């Protein structure tokens, strides 16, 4: 791990010396290296440039801001990541509770309040990396208000999301257990109220959660090498589990219901505490789990659960399966097997003999040479930006203000961008990790998960929403912008508008991590020169530049 860290930081130094990795100019100078910490053994001068800072923040937050770019530039990447790993969690449920004091957790205002809490943290929480990782986890361990009546229990959804936030930098085994016992997950995938089989009536244990915890949250469909490549025998990829494994695991997940209920299957429903066992409804027969793990007869629900989760957790698939997906969500859609291998190895052993250390996993993902060098190593490095994160980037970069109600109220993310927190259309998230867009991308054998959301209709709707955010919802637009709209602050950009080239360069850093090509910059600057500097109260040039960059294919692909 240390050698990788050194290599990564050395690579950053190389990039700084050569003027950036993406072909664009380095918009900031190289700041002097910090004093070595006492007792430390740091690598040589490794201060992050501003362009690289923007790249990091693109991977590790909901979008770079000038303040955070400046703060990160001049530190080492490792110190910034470590500070983020240590930052305390910003929780969603408590904020939701301040926004929704009505006592009704199922109506329209309740749904809006949960989104308000989400946007508050996405846009303003200091623990950005944790929030970003939690969001990524919410797309792997999916619970959604679009199924199983969960729309009516927004507090339960917020409580579930906080499990991801609280455990994003904890240990995976604990994360897995808390997710398993969350009532919202229990309801979504039918473990809540799942009963032991009854051969006399034909009643069987529900298999929904047993299947999905293996397929989507731990193992995946095929056995994997540490580098994420499938293990193959006789030309066929080996399955990681069978239907029988699902049936046995389904019997483990029996006998769980809300804490504090009058009895199994009855009220009251407690959506903000883990499910508890009701032993009369638990299947105590012997079971054989995936990998031939024998669970003896006579164990209680919690003991069975422990054995089952331990079994899944120890499976060699977990590191590469989860590691690869987190790389895809944060950094690049097509990591090399070597990159996946390094990340999975960090999951398998954090350097102190501990398996499942999420901090080690996240550090390995961000500090890896492949993440840092980007397209310099591989021409098709990168990933399509998630549409929702384009909106959060705009708002963060432009210091968007809360609405007149003091909140970040935005309840139409699903309609506008096809995505909203805990609102996926199914347990398979908004897009599949293995989606390949038809045409050249699929022909090249590349995954492009987020493009599963992109079609002629969706991009037009998203671009129109961005247009509104830029041209209508800005500070100072008075009544033309709705009272509770989230309004961008154009003042900084307006101040730079007299000089189109400078304006473009600012946005190049703030939006595109310094990666705009010379041709892009000159074409945009030339266009802006032709736009009146005083039009729209001096805002026109800034607005044009924002819109044209945010809707350009070069921006929409994160590199």
């Amino acid at each position, binding site marked *: 791990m240390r050698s990788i860290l050194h290599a990564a930081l050395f690579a950053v130094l190389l990039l700084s010396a050569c003027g950036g990795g993406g072909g664009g100019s380095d918009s900031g100078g190289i700041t002097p290296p910090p004093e070595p910490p006492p007792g430390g053994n740091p690598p040589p001068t490794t201060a992050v440039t501003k362009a690289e800072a923007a790249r990091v923040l693109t991977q590790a937050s909901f979008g770079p801001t000038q303040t955070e770019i400046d703060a990160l530039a001049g530190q080492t990447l490792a110190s910034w990541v470590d500070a983020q790993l240590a930052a305390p969690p910003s929780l969603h449920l408590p904020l939701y509770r301040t926004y929704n004091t009505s006592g009704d957790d199922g109506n329209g205002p309740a749904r809006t309040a949960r989104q308000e809490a989400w946007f508050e943290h996405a846009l303003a929480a200091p623990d950005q990396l944790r929030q970003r990782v939690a969001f990524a986890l919410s797309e792997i361990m999916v619970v959604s208000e679009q199924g199983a009546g969960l729309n009516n229990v927004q507090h339960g959804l917020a409580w579930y999301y906080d499990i991801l936030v609280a455990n994003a930098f904890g240990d995976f085994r604990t994360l897995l257990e808390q997710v398993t016992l969350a009532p919202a997950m229990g309801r979504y995938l039918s473990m809540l*109220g799942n009963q032991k089989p009854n051969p006399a009536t034909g009643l069987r244990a529900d298999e929904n959660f047993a299947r999905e915890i293996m397929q989507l949250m731990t193992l995946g469909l095929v056995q994997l090498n540490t580098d994420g490549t499938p293990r193959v025998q006789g030309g066929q990829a080996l399955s990681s589990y069978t239907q029988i494994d699902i049936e046995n695991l389904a019997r483990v997940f029996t006998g769980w219901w809300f804490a504090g209920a009058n009895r199994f299957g009855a009220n009251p429903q407690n959506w903000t505490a883990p499910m508890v066992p009701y032993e009369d409804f638990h299947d105590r027969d012997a079971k054989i789990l995936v990998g031939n793990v024998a669970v003896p007869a006579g164990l209680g629900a919690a003991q069975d659960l422990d054995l089952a989760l331990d079994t899944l957790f120890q499976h060699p698939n977990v590191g590469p399966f989860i590691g690869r997906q987190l790389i895809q969500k944060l950094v690049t859609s097509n990591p090399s097997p070597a990159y996946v291998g390094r990340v999975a190895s960090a999951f398998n052993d954090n350097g102190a003999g501990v398996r499942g250390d999420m901090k080690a996993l996240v550090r390995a993902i961000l500090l890896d040479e492949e993440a840092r060098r980007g397209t310099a190593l591989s021409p098709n490095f990168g990933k399509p930006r998630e549409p929702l994160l384009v909106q959060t980037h705009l708002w963060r970069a432009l210091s968007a203000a809360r609405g007149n109600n003091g909140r970040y109220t935005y309840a139409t993310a699903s309609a506008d961008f096809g995505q909203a927190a805990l609102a996926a259309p199914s347990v398979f998230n908004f897009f599949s990790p293995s989606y390949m867009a038809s045409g050249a991308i699929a022909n090249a054998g590349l995954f492009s998960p987020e493009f*599963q959301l992109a079609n002629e209709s969706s991009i037009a709707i998203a671009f129109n929403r961005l247009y509104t955010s830029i041209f209508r919802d800005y500070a100072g637009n008075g009544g033309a912008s709705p009272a509770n709209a989230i309004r961008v602050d154009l003042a900084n950009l307006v101040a730079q508008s007299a000089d189109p080239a400078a304006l473009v360069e600012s946005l190049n850093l703030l939006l595109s991590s310094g990666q705009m090509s010379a041709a892009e910059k000159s074409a945009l600057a030339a*266009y802006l020169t032709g736009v009146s500097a005083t039009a729209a109260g001096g805002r026109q040039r800034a607005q044009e530049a924002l819109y044209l960059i945010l809707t350009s294919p*070069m921006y929409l692909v994160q590199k």
Partner: protein
Amino acid sequence: MNKHPHWTRRELLKCGLAAAAGSASWRGALGVLAGAGASAAEAQLGGSDYRALVCVYLFGANDGYNLLVPRNGSFYSQYATARGNLAVPQAQLLSLNGADTGGREFGLHPNTPELKSLYDTENLAVVANVGTLLQPTTKADYLASRNLPPRLFSHNDQQDQSMSSEPEASLRAGWGGRLGERLMSMNGNQQLSINISIAGNNRFQTAGSVVPYVIGSGGVTKLTAFNGTTPSFINRKAVYDGILDRSLGGHLFEAHSGALTRRSMSLADQVDSALAAGPAINTVFPAGNRLGDQLRMVARLIGTRTNLQAKRQVFFVSLGGFDTHDDQLADHPVLLTQVSQALKAFHDATVELGVANQVTTFTMSDFGRTLGSNGDGTDHAWGSNALVLGGAVGGGRVYGTFPNLSIDGPDDAGKGRIIPTTSWDQYGATLGRWFGASDSDLNLVFPHLNRFASSDLGFLG
């Protein structure tokens, strides 16, 4: 748009075309030469008329054995025993006339009176016990794991396989896309895809050179930024065109985004104008019914077929929520009502447009559901019943082979998962043949078709 698919040798091997791979003849074998399928279709049909297929995908796995129910004597008893507390009471079934060759009489779920009226007027048929198969499969085959579809009972895998008819799905293509490839040259407007989706991207309509054009049920979305004719709009569009130009030819993801954006802008104007100029649809569609909203847009688009020079079109719409692991008795009937009302309105709209005999609508779903109850719902299963609708359909009948509905019976793979007696390949081939594909086309669209006794189930003339 006419670029032929770049298939690796490994993928061709899976397709059974290894012998032809690497030689010039593989392109001919694939029928990818523009017009190869189309001219065959025109010849078959004796002229260029209009035909449309409409795929209604019920996501989550529809419980087809509560949609169509055997209603008489021991057949009903068998059903009721298996289904336990989920069985539809005999007296509530909507009786259908006729019987199958085994003597079964059928009824539809009480929430589907519109489907019954379509069935009675012979516009609707049911195809029994359809599902994913690699070859005809018996219970003995299942127990011996002989050549079974991979990853049975997994939603996304079975969705993929039902849409692709290619179990390893390595070609990332669907049979609707491959069908479209063969007939797309019949359409005069080559910019607009032969396949149109009102339900987003989907594998079914995607193939090497076909990607579905996606439109919302409310219509086309135009870009506000360019929706004007003053110089400022024109200048802005010009600089954006330059941005899109520069996106091509470099990073593959950027090129993809650029091409998609360009297509969105170009087609938005054409389709929007065509819809505005198209006939009004007077048929009333059910309110608050997402499937109905989508089908209404399909009807409006069919109304533009002359303007947009379309002779062949494949549409895709969908409804979700069918994964009734819990609360099935409450949730499933609501969904069936939506399906029933939406399909009736759509059929009426095609009558209104004068194209009832030229539009065939068919349902698909991930798989069926377990006969037995898990308490208040069902689990993932396999074979299920599908609906086909249209003036050309031989309606008022149940096609295929209705299974024995006993748990642990001869057709049960275990726990009430009925083994299909008809494959999606056969179902799709019947539709494809009517659509205009030749027999050789169909063998390429459905690589395993020749493993089954019949490639024409008979429900389309």
